């Protein structure tokens, strides 16, 4: 418990640089993706165990809130993947290149790459959400 408090204090009050932000984003995006995977496995299992409930769950997925959640989920997947590659590359292949400029620069680059990958998907998903839930662009 004491450690949780220390960790949370550090996360919010320690003025770390890009590396700390990348660490936090990696954690959050990992937790987000993990949570989604768990829910997904459970809901698909419903097809077998409770088909009626499965249909109701699908209805829930079509709600606006879930639609917005899914858009962020896609960002989490992209960010977690690209940042994971960055860390693996440095740690396992190019340890010699770990220095302050490369660490800061690569953390920024990863964020840019993740955003560039995510934006077209986000636009497309948002469009589909507005189309199906609000009848826009008909």
């Amino acid at each position: 418990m004491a450690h949780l408090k220390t960790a949370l204090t550090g996360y919010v009050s320690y003025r770390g640089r890009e590396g700390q932000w990348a660490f936090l984003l990696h954690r959050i995006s990992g937790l987000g993706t993990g949570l989604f995977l768990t829910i997904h496995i459970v809901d698909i299992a419903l097809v077998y165990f409770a088909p009626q409930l499965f249909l109701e769950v699908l209805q829930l997925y079509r709600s606006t809130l879930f639609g917005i959640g899914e858009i962020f989920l896609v960002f989490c997947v992209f960010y977690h993947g690209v940042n994971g590659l960055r860390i693996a590359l440095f740690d396992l292949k190019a340890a010699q290149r770990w220095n302050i400029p490369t660490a800061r620069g690569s953390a920024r680059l990863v964020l840019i790459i993740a955003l560039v990958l995510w934006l077209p998907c986000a636009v497309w998903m948002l469009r589909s959400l507005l189309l199906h839930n609000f009848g826009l662009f008909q």
Partner: protein
Amino acid sequence: MKRTLRIFRFHPEQDTRPHYATYSLEVQPTDRVLDLLEQVRAEYDPGLAYRRSCAHGVCGSDAMRINGRNALACKVLVQDLSTPVVTIEPLLGLPLIKDLVVDMEPFFAHYRAVLPYLINDEPLPADGRERLQTAAERDRFDETTRCILCAACTTSCPSFWANGQYLGPAALVTAHRFLFDSRDRAAPQRLQILSARSGVWLCRTAFNCTEACPREIHITRAIAEIKQSILKGRPAV
């Protein structure tokens, strides 16, 4: 010029919880934060507790959080700080004793755990004197000999905040220093300690350690070299 110092205060016999006290000071741009603390002690409160010794960035006693970042109070100048109010807090993740003084024992326990000494039971060379090594062999671990055990790195590490069992960057820097010493013979033993649950794999490359190190040691690099050594089963030169 004027500066306000906002200091984390806690007196274990009088306070139930810590608080912040502010002191306004007349300072020079070239004053060190350590000078400001001395000034507070001289002008306001002789009871203010903090550690210091050399005042020249050599002994490693005065690491603390200065405006939210770990640094040695004797190496940060007033002109390096952009804010009119300077906040000073103790290192995070070690038990608080009083004001800016924390209990360093858990930190040193981790240091001892990595066997911070040369291990070589082979007979001495024929001349009975030194175990020689080439300049290149000495260079291999030169950087990690520079550590002054100030704990700025370990207490800036998110993994250490969350798990006090984690050996932490400082202990890993020392482990690196002996692992890559050509005269050392304990690599298998060292790699076993370093690959344990509290070892090197808890490093999540948040990089706060390298940013905080007053000796400019490439800590995350050293840790990555240990990771690669574990994967290869021997010091990965």
